[in-house]
């Protein structure tokens, strides 16, 4: 008996302890789900969020108008933003002082402003100040492009700087000009590096495209959020919002899958 008292209490091995902690975490998760499911008013949820009747009335407009417009607005903004971001990034890396100052100014300005403000200035400010009315697509292209481009410029700059200096030197020693070396050797490698953050930016722009509502839209110009809000008010029901939420996922999830495939493919060439 005295012997047993001397032997230190046997402690659990680190691996066993980690496993136990994990089981406790699973248990808490299951418990939470069960409690939420029990206290939720399912009838009310079905009525307010998942009304099949209302959902079916949203089709086909939710796809043919709203989803289509969201994709068009986002694509326009992203393409312009990517081009602008690349130009701003190259300007920031330039040895010419004024180029660097101008691009730093543009980046700081549009990265710092809320996208909503940019939309308002372009959509409502320009017509008042200059009597120019840009129209929907140009406004959304400019607004999303300026905001997205300012963010992407910094991402692209980091990507270009992450390409080893030897790559540029090797290209130059083969007789390539600065421009040719950047276009053929450095920038393609930079884009491989920044593919994940660029995808992030595209997804953010998808959601930011909803801000176009501030300039006023006609029915066939509605994108997903405006369409959802309009129908939510019309039906006094949240089902339209659930529907458009699923539509957003219909854009972003396949996008993520495509990018993951591209990453895996370029990973082979590393």
């Amino acid at each position, binding site marked *: 008996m005295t012997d047993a008292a001397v032997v230190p209490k046997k402690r659990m091995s680190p691996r066993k302890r980690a496993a136990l902690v994990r089981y406790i975490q699973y248990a808490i998760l299951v418990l939470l789900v069960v409690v939420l499911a029990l206290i939720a008013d399912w009838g009310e949820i079905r009525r307010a969020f998942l009304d099949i009747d209302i959902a079916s009335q949203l089709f086909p407009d939710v796809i043919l108008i709203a989803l289509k417009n969201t994709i068009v607005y986002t694509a326009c903004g992203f393409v312009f933003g990517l081009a602008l971001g690349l130009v701003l990034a190259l300007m920031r890396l330039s040895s010419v002082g004024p180029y660097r100052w101008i691009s730093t100014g543009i980046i700081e300005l549009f990265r710092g402003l809320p996208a909503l403000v940019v939309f308002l200035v372009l959509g409502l400010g320009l017509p008042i100040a200059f009597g120019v009315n840009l129209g929907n697509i140009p406004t959304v292209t400019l607004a999303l492009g300026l905001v997205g481009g300012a963010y992407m410029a910094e991402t692209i700059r980091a990507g270009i700087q992450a390409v080893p200096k030897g790559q540029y030197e090797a290209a130059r020693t083969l007789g*390539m000009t600065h421009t040719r070396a950047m276009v053929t050797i450095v920038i393609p490698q930079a884009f491989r590096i920044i593919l994940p953050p660029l995808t992030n930016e595209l997804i953010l722009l998808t959601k930011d495209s909803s801000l176009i509502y501030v300039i006023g839209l006609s029915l066939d110009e509605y994108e997903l959020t405006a369409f959802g809000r309009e129908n939510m008010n019309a039906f006094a029901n949240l089902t339209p919002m659930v529907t458009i939420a699923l539509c957003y996922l219909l854009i972003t999830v396949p996008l993520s899958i495509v990018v993951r495939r591209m990453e895996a493919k*370029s990973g082979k060439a590393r």
Partner: protein
Amino acid sequence: MTQTETTPAAERGAAVIDVQNLHKYFGDNEVLKGIDFHIARGEVVCVIGPSGSGKSTLLRCVNLLEEPTSGTILVDGEEITDPDADVDGLRARIGMVFQQFNLFPHMTALRNLTVAQEKVLKRGKAESLEIARTNLEKVGLSDKADAYPAHLSGGQQQRVAIARALSMSPDMMLFDEPTSALDPELVGDVLAVMKDLAAEGMTMMVVTHEMSFAREVADKVVFMDGGVIVEEGLPADVLGDPQHERTKEFLARVL
């Protein structure tokens, strides 16, 4: 051509690389302190010396990867340090091999060899491919044409890099410690390719730590230390019977 009066032209012979009174500063640090150096056509010159002696900087000045602070460099009689010189055209004629290979990782080995032929020399696709395949075969890597650099060993990458430089049909080749980043058992393959090149009469400037290569292949060995050329001459003389104390010390440490 504005030739400065330093050495009589006749003595210099047919120097394809002619460096005169070259100085290079990095900030306040003088890395090259007045280098006079020349390589004749078909000559193989090995530049040896301790790290920080300025030997790589000298090599990188020859194709203007580093801008000389002062001095004159003539390549094929053309003053490349002249602000009006066609540097890109010049670089296309001087092959360069780096310590870190610097293959383009997003292109296959074959594409690495053709891209500059097409974009710089404006050769047609078929011609570029033919030249590329010939050079891959020359370095013994025909079977790796479609492999990406990441799937090649260091020694294979360096041989592809040599083939890439050769595909531009250069007049001369610069090697910047081509075997220093390789595992010891891969060094031999790369040196063998370089020996073949030397035997074909290629003009070569090689910064190296491979003393046996210098002894065997070089027409001239240049020992640099502290930004100056301490000693130069035949390999047997410089490596076998060094006259300067610093050369002796260096060789005692590396041999």
